[in-house]
């Protein structure tokens, strides 16, 4: 049965796309909707701690490249981190909520943050490397179960 729910796949690890994802999630939760965000692949950076990850050679290499929510850069004009710095400065000047603040707000509003188990395996991210507020890792069946009961579904 369709419920007043929003389910979102967060695939991207770009700062700008993550902002959109968390703004929609907090807005929906503030409007009384039940919200679930599924984090997969690059999106996992949004719920990752600022710690080195990986076991194998490639896993460690990837762990070196993966950022946390404060380290992700915009999808365009990052220029090796200058873009991220510039956007943060501009957002602060205009008093726009930062990504980490938006994530805190989402958690406060009861948004469910679900990590994708398969991407965690591939990227060699264990649950202790994710922020403690995340739910039990899950897979596609869990997302589909949520999505088919949702009024809104998004892929970001």
């Amino acid at each position, binding site marked *: 049965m369709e419920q007043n729910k929003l389910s979102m796949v967060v695939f991207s690890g770009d700062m700008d796309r993550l902002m959109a994802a968390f703004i929609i999630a907090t*807005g929906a939760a503030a409007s*009384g909707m039940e919200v679930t965000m599924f984090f997969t692949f690059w999106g996992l950076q949004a719920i990752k701690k600022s710690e080195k990850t990986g076991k194998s050679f490639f896993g460690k290499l990837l762990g070196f490249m993966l950022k946390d929510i404060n380290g992700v850069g915009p999808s365009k004009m990052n220029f090796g981190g200058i873009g991220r710095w510039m956007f943060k400065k501009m957002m602060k000047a205009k008093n726009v*909520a930062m990504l980490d603040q938006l994530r805190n707000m989402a958690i406060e509003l009861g948004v469910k943050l679900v990590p994708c188990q398969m991407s965690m395996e591939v990227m060699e991210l264990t649950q202790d490397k994710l922020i403690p507020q995340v739910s039990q890792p899950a897979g596609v069946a869990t997302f589909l179960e949520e999505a088919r009961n949702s009024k809104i579904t998004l892929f970001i």
Partner: protein
Amino acid sequence: MTEQVKVDLVLDLKGLLCPMPIVKLSQAIKDLPVGAVIEGIATDPGVMADVPAWAKTSGQELISIEQRDKEYRFLIKKVK
């Protein structure tokens, strides 16, 4: 017209941008009893569209919304 409504809580939303005005509004309304009225004062022009939309989605009643100089003032009544 708006003078006749008894305001239970004044919410200062000045300087906040999307999505914070509606996030703060939803948090403030949670702690109030049904029937209570919130007056919001914002500077983000986006609230002119977003507060009425929020009222529809969340099922609360928008009594009025207006622009006064560079401020946007609205009255929301908690109905559920």
